[in-house]
């Protein structure tokens, strides 16, 4: 029953994809305008839109060819405005992972503190409540001014947007560790540090991992916007650069790669949460 269902679902996905691509293709064809006669030298400077009346939107097959070009040659470097998609993604991943790991190093210990101590929770709550809803990009000018380095500023923006979900989930996970498990540790005269690592951490780990999964998702959303602002390298800069080149094909292939990498990041964290999950 189960395998048959996944086969059916897979077939349905393929049908939907085909319908979408067909609709896209037809839409592009429908936008075909009249061809204009012009001087061949002038025509060479103009795009196909001017000379053949073609739509600015590429056909699915053109995007497919562009994607294939990127997949087969991901790491070429032909100057600052023409780098392979692999290089751009590597820059973005480096920024996201650095900012994310720094955030984890800060958020998980502070989350432990907040979860364990009601005083700290009350004391830090106003700061968290005010900082949490601030768009991470609002920090960008301040980061650029203080850090004076666009790359580090992007990492800082990732850091600041990853901190909150991890902090809040860690605090919640630690605070909701069952009292009886702590009582077991107390009756066994287990020290505070051993209790933290042997009881509280494994008990709260699934909640902490959920926070990390939310954080990495947000970080991957934010990096595109941050790189559009700081420029130079990264997948966000790539998409913006393709827009400046008026290459919708490039923009669409950028979107596809962003989606694929985001999915892989989420899957990696999902795999990690399975390792620490427990059933009660």
């Amino acid at each position, binding site marked *: 029953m189960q395998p048959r269902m996944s086969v059916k679902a897979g077939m349905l996905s393929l049908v939907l994809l085909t319908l979408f691509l067909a609709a896209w293709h037809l839409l592009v064809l429908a936008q075909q305008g009249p061809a204009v006669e012009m001087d061949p030298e002038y025509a060479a400077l103009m795009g196909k839109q001017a000379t053949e009346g073609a739509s600015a939107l590429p056909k699915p097959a053109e995007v497919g060819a562009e994607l294939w070009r990127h997949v087969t040659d991901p790491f070429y470097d032909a100057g600052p405005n023409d780098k392979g998609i692999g290089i751009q993604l590597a820059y973005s991943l480096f920024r996201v992972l650095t900012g994310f790991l720094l955030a984890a190093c800060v958020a998980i210990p502070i989350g432990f503190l907040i979860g364990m101590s009601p005083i700290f929770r009350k004391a830090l709550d106003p700061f968290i409540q005010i900082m949490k809803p601030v768009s991470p990009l609002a920090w960008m000018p301040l980061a650029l001014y203080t850090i004076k380095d666009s790359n580090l500023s992007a990492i800082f923006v990732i850091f600041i947007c990853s901190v909150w979900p991890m902090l809040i989930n860690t605090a919640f996970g630690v605070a909701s560790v069952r009292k009886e498990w702590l009582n077991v540790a107390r009756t*066994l*005269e287990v020290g505070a540090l051993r209790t933290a690592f042997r009881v509280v951490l*494994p008990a709260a780990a699934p909640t902490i991992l959920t926070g990390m999964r939310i954080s990495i998702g947000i970080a991957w959303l934010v990096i595109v916007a941050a790189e559009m602002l700081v420029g130079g390298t990264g997948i966000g800069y790539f998409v913006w650069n393709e827009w400046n080149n008026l290459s919708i094909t490039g923009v669409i292939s950028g979107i596809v790669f962003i989606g694929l990498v985001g999915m892989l990041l989420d899957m990696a964290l999902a795999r990690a949460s399975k390792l620490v999950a*427990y*059933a009660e």
Partner: protein
Amino acid sequence: MTAPLAKTPKRGEPIGDLMSPAPDTRKKIIQVEGLERRFATPDGKSNTQVFGDVWFSIHEGEFVCLIGHSGCGKTTLLNILAGLDAPTAGGVIVDGKEISGPSLDRSVVFQSHALMPWLSAIKNIAFAVESRWPQWSRKQVLDHCQKYIDLVHLTGSESKKPVQLSGGMKQRVGIARAFSIEPKILLMDEPFSALDALTRGSLQEELLSICAETHQTCFMITHDIDEAILLADKIVLMTNGPEARVCEIVENTLPRERTRQDAYTHPNYYPMRNHLMEFLVSRSKRFSQELSSGSYDPRYPPVVRPTAGPRDAGASKAGEPQPAQDGAKYGDPLR
């Protein structure tokens, strides 16, 4: 297996014990002295006494049950004995020293088993054993754990996670964990109340045989009369809260070598059962009247021994206040 800390009673240690009919010469492991616990009312302006003036003691190797309705502070009392809660007044003396917090001397079997779901059965026990003997090697720890897994008949289920174990098996792991650290006293908070009747019966028997084998001193909270008669040497009766008191202490008149199958055939079984039932059904509510009319001394709550003798202490005096230190009753023969 070798006997844990609690050994057979030491003889020739005359201790003046006014509570017992015949002076009990065994060492007192736990002395509860004038224990009182108050909780603040929800508005925080005043407080109510859950129980107060609680005095009793537990001798080495003895199995003591505490019976009372819910709300009389049974669990609070056990938490204080475990060191997880602090009394408002009075104190608990364990082996000559007043307690100030939890200790490996006293291990607890929790009502809800309190196993850590991310650890397998044997790892749950190992967590306790490593805490008790941190210097032990990994092999020593696992061998010790295995001994207690075998003791509670869980051989073969060592590596199962709690979620894969039935309710009875989980509580077996909880019991094995509590025994594994070889405590001076084992505290049990209604350990079988969440189990079905059949499982409960077999676990009670296992506990009985383990205690007989190890001479473990035990204190157990229950509201099950049959459980108390089967397991306990001494049953402490607690009146209804708030302001609960120890009403009296009932000595089990059944021979110690009793089993679930033959306990109810003993002539003293029904006198015991009726006495306890009478207490739970009516006396536990009206105790304040007994207090004002009788010569109740909280330091020495009356000790009764219900038997099937001519002067049936349990059944015939039903409903009447039990006068303290009634010498006639103590003279009753066992049969």
